[in-house]
């Protein structure tokens, strides 16, 4: 599968002979090889640096140490259980927050009066760094799963709310007028015109929100928890066990990566009517 980000397609231009030869790497396989090379080189340099004593293994850990630690933690099942825990919190927070936020944002379409009334409050809530709520959330919802989910919800809901509300406001007035001329009532206009036209915007927030879901879960675990990758990282770093910290971080990275692709898949399959367009854009 080739992923071409918009804007990264090279502008066709006359190339010199040398440049054309270099472009031999610009294939999926060539790019993968270069990327793998960069990763291997990075870790090799790191390991060599530690072995030669250029950098302190105590402060940065070492690739082989990370590998050994990771292997041990996988074998004991500890890593998997922590990963599941954090993943579960993040996804639960993401799903609840996104649904809740989207519903409220969409509902604001119904009353311009209410929407105008609450708009400054939404802005105010949005301007609070939600992470600052973490200690209170733990105080209110305990040190278990609920407090992490609530923190994720507080992060994701507001993003979804603002996106859904904005998209509902921007929904094509002509489509709504057409429905009204057909005799549609407000509910029909809402469900047939407004909601579908907000879906692309709401789905676009998934990418941001899945990240925020993870942030909420991990920060919640930092504050107070007995399980999860955040807890793992936090306790390991207070013991100066850098290799374990890296295991946690890399696991989070992989998790985020996988989630991103899952979201990408959801986005592609949920809006088939947008599909045909995408193939044109790559050609431009």
């Amino acid at each position, binding site marked *: 599968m080739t992923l071409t980000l918009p804007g990264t397609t090279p502008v066709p231009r006359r190339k010199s002979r040398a440049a054309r030869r270099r472009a031999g790497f610009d294939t999926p396989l060539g790019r993968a090889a270069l990327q793998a090379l960069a990763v291997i080189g990075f870790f090799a340099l790191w390991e060599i640096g530690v072995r030669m004593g250029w950098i302190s293994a105590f402060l940065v850990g070492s690739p082989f140490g990370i590998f050994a630690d990771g292997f041990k933690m996988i074998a004991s099942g500890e890593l998997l259980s922590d990963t599941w825990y954090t993943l579960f919190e993040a996804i639960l927070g993401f799903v609840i927050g996104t649904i809740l936020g989207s519903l409220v944002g969409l509902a604001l379409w119904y009353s311009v009066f209410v929407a105008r009334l609450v708009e400054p409050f939404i802005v105010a809530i949005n301007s609070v760094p939600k992470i600052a709520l973490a200690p209170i959330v733990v105080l209110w919802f305990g040190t278990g799963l609920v407090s992490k989910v609530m923190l994720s919800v507080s992060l994701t809901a507001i993003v979804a709310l603002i996106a859904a509300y904005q998209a509902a406001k921007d929904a094509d007035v002509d489509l709504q007028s057409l429905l009204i001329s057909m005799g549609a009532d407000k509910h029909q206009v809402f469900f*047939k015109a407004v909601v579908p036209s907000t879906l692309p915007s709401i789905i676009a927030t998934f990418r941001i929100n899945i990240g925020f879901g993870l942030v909420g879960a991990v920060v919640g675990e930092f504050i107070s928890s007995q399980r999860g990758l955040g807890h793992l990282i936090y306790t390991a770093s207070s013991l100066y066990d850098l290799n374990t910290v890296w295991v946690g971080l890399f696991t989070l990275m992989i998790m985020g990566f996988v989630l991103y692709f899952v979201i990408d898949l959801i986005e592609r399959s949920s809006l*088939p*009517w947008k599909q045909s367009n995408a193939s044109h854009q790559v050609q431009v």
Partner: protein
Amino acid sequence: MQPSPVQLSVRNVRKSFSSKAGDVRVLDDLSFDINARDFVSIIGPSGCGKTTIFNIIAGLIEPDSGSMQYLGAEIESLRGRVGYMMQKDLLFPWRTVLGNVLLGLETRGVDRHEAEGKAREYLKGFGLAGFENAYPKTLSGGMRQRVALIRTLIMDPDILLLDEPFSALDYQTRLYLEGVLKDAVETYHKTVILVTHDIDEAVALSKRVVVLSGRPARVKIVHDIDIAAHSPIAARSDSRFSGYFHALCAELDIQTEKTA
């Protein structure tokens, strides 16, 4: 030709919009009658409020004053009973061709199965069989506008309001769709009000042409078009076509001189 009864009568309608520069009077004491099975074109300088008339008839905006009668009875608007078609095809991009055609019937709460059967029949009749599950994005402009026409006709509206429906299309497609429209109107016995800036199109399609003056809009003159051609293309080669065409041009020209 026997005289048809008056179907829709618009009486003394006024409408002004407030803007930063003050109130703009768009319609000033506008009155006209539409007969049953009429095909009336409304032409006039751009921005003279033709779309506003449609929006009032369709119940999208309320007039400041004035009244409308439908078959003699006083009405607020024809909301839910008109087929409104605009320059933009306004197909819902997330709905398939079939889904778009079904829009009006769904809104009315017609039984899904029955509605679908009817929709497929219409699509077949307009040469769009096989495109039921295509999304609007994949269709050409002419096909999209044909889908919009079907969506309008399938609701069996009392009056079709066509607001420059073909002006965004190329000339060949426009000629073709004019023919499709004329056939459909005759098959389904519809009354049509067509807003256009295309005098040629107005003469080729209509039984009557209403010329509006510039803002605020008033009926300047009504021309009866007496061309008995079957198709808009045949109408264009009728001996009286150019006479009507020039007469209408003259009406509009005088206005541009006055307002300029």
